[in-house]
């Protein structure tokens, strides 16, 4: 169904002139330089530099490109210098001569009998070209090995864009012979190409592109069928799905999001702002258009409140989400979700509501993206350390409204235990987990009525920490540094010691601020009375209760800071 949906998406795009996707037989390719020819096939002027300020090649539509692995296969009317000029920096002159021959042969075969000034000039140039001349080209050190296209002097557009070239190329494609079979995407009997075009734009995969459908080693061969005959996909369907996917993954696409090593792309069956919305909701590239950014933020707030913005069109429009991650020279499917725009909005909204939590600072994200959440769970907050499996599972849980992955809670607790940093995002994540997976009812802010033992103990710990901060400002090792991990896991052992220390702290505060000491002592009593006397301090807490501990701690601590603000206003 993945290929099928992509095939349909290509059809939609090719009907839409604004989408600017290549037609069958053509593809987008990064090209660095352009050589200018006169009508006699002589090179004129300096080679045009097509690169941008950052040195990135310009992406233009070219015939092909051919799928190339180790063999020699030339593109038509464009390629790298080894093919086009017979000179490159690979240090294999014999092979380079062969590639140049292949380029000449391809051009001659395609342009055979074509009556066009451009074709004549191009063929004349190839006949007269000596590979030794390459070194005399201006800027040759920069051109060497890069992709090159041609232009006829004094005429707009590239040579390969001339109608005669395009027609000749399309005609040439139709002649190509290959085995036929039943296409498993479209169901029609059609030629089956042995390899498919590469998919570019999945970070971590090879920059020249990787394959989604490939059979590149012995173990993948079944029933003696080689390469893509293992899974017959027609030439057109293969072109359509690779083009559609490359379009979604193109640099600057608003329909893709990077989460850890997984690249997520979205598309829907109808044009609209739904795709961009989910892109930005999941933490994708920000749109450059300020108006669009404002609108998207508005939609996001609506969705978080459980409303469906009308601007997204029909709620029943099918919506597709595909998560891809690199693996060796291939791309693997992390997840695949078919839903509707309405269902997506609802699930995303539910996720935000589960996460909702009072922030520490206004600069913290109100609608954090999965990527921001996952980074909180990675050692050193380095996105390289994000667990690849967890990322996929989290996104699937969000999109499908399913329970969050079980490992989420354990890794959040693990990270907190390791660096003793109870952040807004980590706490929000724990809250979301407990709300959705354990059906706990948890408020956004401090809930003094909550009688959960974990929650109570968390609050108690926050008060004790506060007492220490007052009594011993700037202590070298605070109670949090020394006792946080043990207090969460084995309160029965730690709390008696902690509370005893707190009494010393209170005694000290009493000497300076008697009123404040009474308030703090009352707080402790309030919390402790809520703890079931029969159980007392339990000897250990389950992971869920530990999650509640963190929540109680965070919210009680937040509460202290909120109070302080109130006082300063008085």
């Amino acid at each position, binding site marked *: *169904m*993945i*290929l*099928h949906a992509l095939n349909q998406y290509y059809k939609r795009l090719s009907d839409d002139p604004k989408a600017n996707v290549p037609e069958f037989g053509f593809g987008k390719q990064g090209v660095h330089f352009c050589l200018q020819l006169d009508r006699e096939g002589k090179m004129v002027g300096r080679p045009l530099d097509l690169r941008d300020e950052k040195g990135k090649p310009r992406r233009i539509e070219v015939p092909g490109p051919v799928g190339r692995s180790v063999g020699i296969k030339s593109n038509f009317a464009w390629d790298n210098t080894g093919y086009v000029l017979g000179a490159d920096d690979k240090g294999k002159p014999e092979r380079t001569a062969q590639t140049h021959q292949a380029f000449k042969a391809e051009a001659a075969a395609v342009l055979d009998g074509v009556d066009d000034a451009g074709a004549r000039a191009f063929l004349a140039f190839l006949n007269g070209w000596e590979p030794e001349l390459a070194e005399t080209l201006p800027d040759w050190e920069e051109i060497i090995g890069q992709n090159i296209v041609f232009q006829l002097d004094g005429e707009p557009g590239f040579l390969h864009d001339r109608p005669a070239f395009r027609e000749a190329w399309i005609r040439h494609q139709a002649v190509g012979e290959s085995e036929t*079979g*039943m296409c*498993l*995407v479209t*169901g029609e*009997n059609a030629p089956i190409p042995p390899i498919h075009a590469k998919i570019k734009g999945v970070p971590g995969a090879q920059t020249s592109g990787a394959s*989604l*459908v*490939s*059979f*590149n*080693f*012995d*173990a*993948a*061969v*079944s*029933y*003696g*069928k080689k390469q893509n005959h*293992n*899974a*017959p*996909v027609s030439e057109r369907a293969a072109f359509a799905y690779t083009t559609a996917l490359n379009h979604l993954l193109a640099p600057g696409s608003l329909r893709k999001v990077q989460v850890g090593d997984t690249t997520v792309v979205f598309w829907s069956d109808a044009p609209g702002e739904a795709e961009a919305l989910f892109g930005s909701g999941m933490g994708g590239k920000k749109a450059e258009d300020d108006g669009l950014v404002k609108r998207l933020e508005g939609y996001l707030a609506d969705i978080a409140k459980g409303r469906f913005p009308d601007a997204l069109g029909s709620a029943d429009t099918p919506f597709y989400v595909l998560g891809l*991650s690199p*693996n*060796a020279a*291939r*791309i*693997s*499917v*992390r*997840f*695949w979700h078919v839903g509707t725009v309405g269902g997506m909005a609802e699930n995303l909204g539910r996720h935000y509501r589960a996460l909702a939590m009072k922030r520490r600072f206004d600069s913290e994200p109100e609608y954090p993206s999965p990527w921001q959440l996952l980074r909180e769970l990675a050692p050193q907050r380095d996105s390289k350390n994000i667990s690849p*499996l967890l990322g*996929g*599972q989290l996104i*699937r849980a969000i999109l499908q409204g399913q329970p969050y992955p079980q490992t989420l809670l354990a890794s959040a607790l693990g990270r907190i235990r390791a660096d003793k940093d109870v952040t807004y995002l980590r706490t929000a994540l724990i809250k979301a987990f407990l709300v959705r997976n354990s059906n706990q009812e948890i408020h956004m802010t401090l809930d003094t009525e909550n009688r959960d033992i974990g929650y109570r103990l968390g609050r108690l710990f926050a008060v004790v920490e506060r007492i220490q901060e007052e009594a011993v400002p700037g202590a070298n090792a605070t109670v949090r540094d020394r006792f946080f991990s043990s207090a969460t896991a084995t309160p029965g052992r730690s709390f008696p010691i902690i509370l005893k220390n707190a009494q010393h702290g209170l005694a000290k505060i009493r000497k300076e601020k008697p009123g404040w000491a009474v308030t703090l002592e009352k707080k402790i009593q309030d919390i402790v009375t809520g703890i079931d006397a029969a159980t007392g301090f339990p000897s250990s807490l389950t992971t869920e209760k530990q999650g509640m501990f963190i929540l109680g701690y965070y919210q009680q601590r937040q509460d202290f800071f909120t109070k302080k603000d109130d006082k300063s206003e008085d």
Partner: protein
Amino acid sequence: MAGIQLRVWGDYACFTRPEMKVERVSYDVMTPSAARGILEAIYWKPAIRWGIDRIHVMKPIRFDNVRRNEVAGKVPVGGSGGVNAAMKGGNAPLRLYVEESRQQRAAMVLRDVEYVIEAHFDYTSAEDRNDGKHLDMFNRRAKKGQCFHRPYLGCREFAAHFEPVKGDIPVSELAGDAPRDLGWMLYDINYAADMTPFFFRPTLEKGIVDCRKGVVAA
């Protein structure tokens, strides 16, 4: 022909799509050829051929990701170091060094599946035509949990539990869902004609895939 009904279930299943068989992605439901494989694991003789009629999908379709260590190579069949040579008494070593060709590959598999397979058998020749015998043997074996080899849900490592269905087939949890197009799906492989795959275009209606509709030979 007389029909049988078998309930199969398991924690994981992977009915690999042919186009995604390297980094595996499963079909949404069991394929007829996978169902045939399960029946053959329980009871099969050269005189009969199993034909799958309907597959009931009892539980919601859920996916999960796993990573597994697999190998890139195969033990060769031909050549001096291949299986053929070894069987003819050659003394070349017949082995695959896992350490040298190990690869970690991702798979998108199904979680927590349950199906009821409705099937019948046809005869392949004039010999051994006895409906009652074959039917009884299958049902007796299925009831006792006997099998020639462990039946599995698409991949050998995802073992299938099985039992005959007593009485009516229970209603699927998906019975209330709208019909769903499952796209082109592998039906089976024609081993007689150069192992040509043939496909069909099933729909999931009321939680049931009817395998007798729309089969296309390639």
